[in-house]
């Protein structure tokens, strides 16, 4: 950071604080832009979008558009599900590269929508970086949803999926505790695990609970209850989305997501299989 930036080609030492000269000013840009800070913010915004469930195409597009809007001459943006990287070149030849590592992706569609709206707005008319930083802080705080409401939603959704797949009302009641367990695990993440191990353990736990409800005499069709639980875990695997990314030209990202989707499916199936085996001992 700071002063030891690389200099562009053979130009004289470029200034760190790039102030737009009148002829280079992008329409409406009447403030100075610190390139380092601008790139850092642009990367943070697009990384947060990726973490909230955006497609790679959208992430790279947003990053490029924001940097362009703030007067970059050239932007090289690259992203895969675990990384966002960009190099910007300013009109005076100063260039900088920044990389952001993504560790976990979870669907936070309210944050994604806020950030999308913010990036659209600043691309239409760039705002000073201080304001942008404040807006970004505001956009990345999720809408307030009380935990009990989310729990209730998970519980009802599990029962709904059970009914949809042909369970009767007793199966739907049996699915309530399964939904509660899975939503509780998802909301609290009591053990710190990566997504595959988490899916496997959650599947085993949910499967055992399904079998328990069957032996207690609550559920008539164990399979329907289990499917209700599986449906809560499944949207984590975005098989269709991975193929879409492949065909949009994001080959690496598409492959990574597809492998993750397949492994998640295997983990869900294996988790419930383990539960069935354990249940068979009793």
């Amino acid at each position, binding site marked *: 950071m700071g002063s030891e930036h690389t200099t562009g080609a053979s130009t004289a030492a470029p200034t760190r604080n790039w102030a737009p000269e009148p002829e280079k000013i992008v329409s409406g840009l009447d403030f100075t832009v610190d390139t380092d800070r601008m790139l850092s913010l642009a990367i943070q915004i697009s990384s947060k979008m990726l973490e909230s469930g955006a497609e790679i195409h959208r992430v790279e597009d947003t990053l490029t558009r924001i940097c362009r809007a703030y007067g970059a001459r050239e932007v090289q943006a690259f992203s895969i599900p675990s990384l966002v990287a960009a190099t910007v070149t300013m009109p005076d030849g100063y260039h900088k590269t920044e990389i952001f590592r993504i560790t976990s992706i979870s669907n936070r569609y309210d944050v994604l929508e806020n950030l999308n709206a913010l990036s659209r707005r600043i691309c239409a008319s760039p705002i000073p970086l201080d304001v942008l930083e404040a807006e970004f802080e505001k956009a990345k705080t999720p809408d307030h949803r009380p935990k009990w409401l989310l729990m209730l939603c998970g519980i009802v959704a599990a029962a709904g999926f059970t009914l949809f797949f042909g369970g009767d009302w007793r199966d739907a009641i049996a699915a309530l505790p399964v939904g509660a367990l899975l939503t509780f695990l998802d909301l609290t993440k009591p053990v710190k695990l990566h997504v595959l191990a988490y899916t496997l353990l959650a599947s085993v736990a949910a499967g055992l609970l399904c079998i328990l409800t069957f032996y207690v005499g609550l559920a008539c069709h164990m399979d329907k209850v289990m499917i209700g639980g599986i449906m809560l875990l499944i949207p984590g695997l975005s098989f*269709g989305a991975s193929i879409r990314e492949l065909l949009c030209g994001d080959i690496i990202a598409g492959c990574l997501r597809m492998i993750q989707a397949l492994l998640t499916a295997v983990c869900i199936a294996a988790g419930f299989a383990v539960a069935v085996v354990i249940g068979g001992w009793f």
Partner: protein
Amino acid sequence: MNSAELMEMLFSTFAIAASTLIYAVLMRVKLRHLPSIGLGAGMTYLIFALLNSVGLSLLLSNMIAAMIATIYGEIMARLFKAPVTIYSLPSIIPLVPGGSLYYAMAALMNGNEAEFVSRGTDTVMIALGLAIGIISVSVIGVFLPRPGFKRK
């Protein structure tokens, strides 16, 4: 198709629309999108069920339903000025092969190889149909202009 089957289909449609809508709350979708997500999910399933009952194969009926769901998603995303993912992911949930994935796994556990192959093929066919349906629409959708973003 007799009236009992029709009633069952309508009940399933209602159940999946409600479940998807509720599941969308878990995915932190903003409240203003929820009605159209529920509508989209119900529509997707109804189309799939109608096509399947007419006698179309699993692959084809899933493909067409996924195509219509994706078109609906692209339209809604543009109407509400929201990212497409918000609509495209939830509206596919009714078609997700959760059931056949489970039955394939269960058949494998019971050592029923024939059942495993048939259920496994179903799972792959559904996933393939979904994928083809989604991509055939959304690859075009990516290149269509989006209101709000100026092209530079």
